[in-house]
């Protein structure tokens, strides 16, 4: 198993790198973050025009048939450039769920819009005090005839403020803690009875609290099998975790580069601080952690694309390693920058916050270590 990129993949990587380096500078990014809008629609439209939004969808639905490797390549570059546009929420997660689970009619209504840059999606599952396991969802909905009635609320719905449609994870059977009985329902964000409270997040993105009061949607809006949402979710979550980790790897590599540069320029006690052996070794350790993450990332992407038996094991290792390496690298990037690294002005701290946000999603380090241990014993 050698990981090699195809010509197309190499081109995708290069074009993403080129476009973002030239058109997504940090100052521009901060303007978006500090504006009232949830993301930059001009950028988003360009992402659509460049084919990025279509890249990982099947050709039947208007995509280019890319897989985990393409997701990884794009996500990594989005991480390098600290892109706040909701590629992860709308394309990697929401889009793939719709693509995998929706009826043809719904696909054509939403997926076409999504791929052309005109539809934003959010995935709403987390509930107060229950932020770590999808099986820990309690919100229930009642099915009658060919419609389904939603009542309840969801918290910290990422991309929730921007979303046109929300994919709500809820119970049509079973009890909190059970994996069975969960259903995924597509709800228009402006449906009657659906109220949202929008806000920004610390990593410069958008989110919302949602409450549903007698929201009535057609039963056809259930994605996948009713009561079997976890089956639909599993592969999407896997690729989603890969995407987040690749984004983190991109952020980490930018942090290592920036720290190396800064310590060469910054002088203290009469010499570049890069001359201090403790800092040199710290950066060597940052580099080591980065490369170990990169190796796991490449292997995971390859294994997911090849449906390798070890794909989930490797993914768990990746998410666990990114959690510790991401913190190590981000903390030390700030430490080596000193005071200036703790300001809003430098991008260092914004990478740190994005890495923290990634770590907070889809399972902590210990969760993935436990998962890794469990899969290793098989």
């Amino acid at each position: 198993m050698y990981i090699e990129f195809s010509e197309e993949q190499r081109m995708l990587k290069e074009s993403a790198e080129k476009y973002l380096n030239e058109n997504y500078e940090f100052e521009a990014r901060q303007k978006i973050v500090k504006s009232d809008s949830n993301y930059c629609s001009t950028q988003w439209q360009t992402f659509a025009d460049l084919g990025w939004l279509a890249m990982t969808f099947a050709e039947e639905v208007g995509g280019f048939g890319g897989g985990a490797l393409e997701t990884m390549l794009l996500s990594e570059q989005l991480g390098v450039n600290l892109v706040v546009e909701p590629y992860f929420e709308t394309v990697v997660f929401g889009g793939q769920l719709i693509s995998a689970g929706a009826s043809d009619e719904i696909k054509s209504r939403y997926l076409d819009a999504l791929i052309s840059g005109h539809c934003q999606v959010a995935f709403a599952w987390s509930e107060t005090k229950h932020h770590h396991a999808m099986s820990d969802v309690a919100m229930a909905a009642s099915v009658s005839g060919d419609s389904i009635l939603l009542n309840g609320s969801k918290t910290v719905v990422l991309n929730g403020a921007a979303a046109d449609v929300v994919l709500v994870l809820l119970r049509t059977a079973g009890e909190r803690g059970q994996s069975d009985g969960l259903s995924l329902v597509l709800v228009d964000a402006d449906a009657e009875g659906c109220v949202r409270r929008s806000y920004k997040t610390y990593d410069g993105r958008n989110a919302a609290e949602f409450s549903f009061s007698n929201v009535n949607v057609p039963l056809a809006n259930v994605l996948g099998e009713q009561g079997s949402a976890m089956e639909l979710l599993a592969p999407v979550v896997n690729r989603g975790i890969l995407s987040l980790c690749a984004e983190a790897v991109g952020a980490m590599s930018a942090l290592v580069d920036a720290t190396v540069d800064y310590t060469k320029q910054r002088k203290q006690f009469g010499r570049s601080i890069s001359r201090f052996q403790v800092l040199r070794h710290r950066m060597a350790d940052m580099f080591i952690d980065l490369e170990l993450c990169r190796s796991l990332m490449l292997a995971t992407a390859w294994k997911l694309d090849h449906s390798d038996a070890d794909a989930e094991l490797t993914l768990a290792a990746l998410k666990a390693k990114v959690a510790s390496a991401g913190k190590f690298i981000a903390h030390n990037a700030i430490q080596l920058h000193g005071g200036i690294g703790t300001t809003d002005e430098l991008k260092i701290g914004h990478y740190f916050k994005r890495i923290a946000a990634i770590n907070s999603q889809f399972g902590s380090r210990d969760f993935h270590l436990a998962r890794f241990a469990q899969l290793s014993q098989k």
Partner: protein
Amino acid sequence: MNDNNFRAEVRAFLQEELTPELKRAGELMTSVFADFDATMAWHRKLYQKGWVAPDWPEAYGGTGWTLNQRYIFQEECKLSNAPALLPMGLQMLGPMLIHYGSDEQKAHYLPRLLSGEDVWCQGYSEPGAGSDLASLSTSAVRDGDDYLINGSKIWTSYAQHSNKIFCLVRTSKEGAPQAGISFILVDMDTDGITVEPIVGLDGRVEQCQVFFDGVRVPVANLVGEENQGWEVAKYLLEFERGGHNFTIDHKKQMAKIRKQASEEYDADGCLWRDNSVFNARFAEVAVDALALEYTELRIKGALNAGGNPGALSSLCKIVGTETGQRFNEISMDILGPQALPFQIAALEPDFEGELIVADYALTCMPEYINNRAATIYGGSAEIQRDIIAKRVLGL
């Protein structure tokens, strides 16, 4: 008075004077600073009681308490969420003026500092000279009975709220870099001073950059002799280093984590407090916090016996700050995505709106963010390790 009675007296005072608004300001602290207005309100209450400067000699407005009483007072204030007083005047400038100031300076500045009339900030660091203080370049050039000051200072906490600043300035370029430094007191409303806020990673302003453009300051404002500022600064830095008691902060952090872990559910749908891996991780850090608690006690014992903490205070700074950072990480793990909402208005003590997430989650991310600076300011973790290697181990 025995310690228990003393503690009771402190508690009674806190019970009486620490209003819900002030407590809220203490609860909402996400760094070593509390909301400015609440801080000064509490400062004035303590001043009225005569308790605003327990560490000062009684003759200058101190309380005459024993070391233990001072510790008890500090502990009770923190544990009841009193907002922290500003250290720049009370902990840094005060002791220094008492030691090096002229009688006129003492008579003029100390009462105004105690009453809260003067609010001081510290002008030490400069852009490009962080831990390497001796390389500072802000210049003070003699012009008649004045100095003309040009340059800039950075990381001046709460400069935006201060009416005074004490500065290290370069009065000579001769000799070793340390040799030409002087210590001077400056009015913030002097012409030529501008204050530019620095937005922190949490989106709020605690730090500033202060610019000096031909600022005219009377020579009488010099503390100590011209070119002798380095000695003054060193004295002060030792106060800064030794002054902090980390155990109480850690206890507050642990109490918060315990609360979170007894209300939030992990990925198995169990309370975090019943998760054995979580408990092991938390215990790892808590063990270090306990070890530091007894180390601080050893230091207190040595001080009580008239000794000197010496470089053990570097140890405390390292372990205290790094342990605090590890507690932040544990909270982040418990709270997961709940730590992400950015609700800056809710961090003001007078906020009356609705919280997005649980109260104990509100401060989690900004604390995590702001606490990264703890291993940078006041002598970075690297500088402290250099000190231990050199001064304790003789390397």
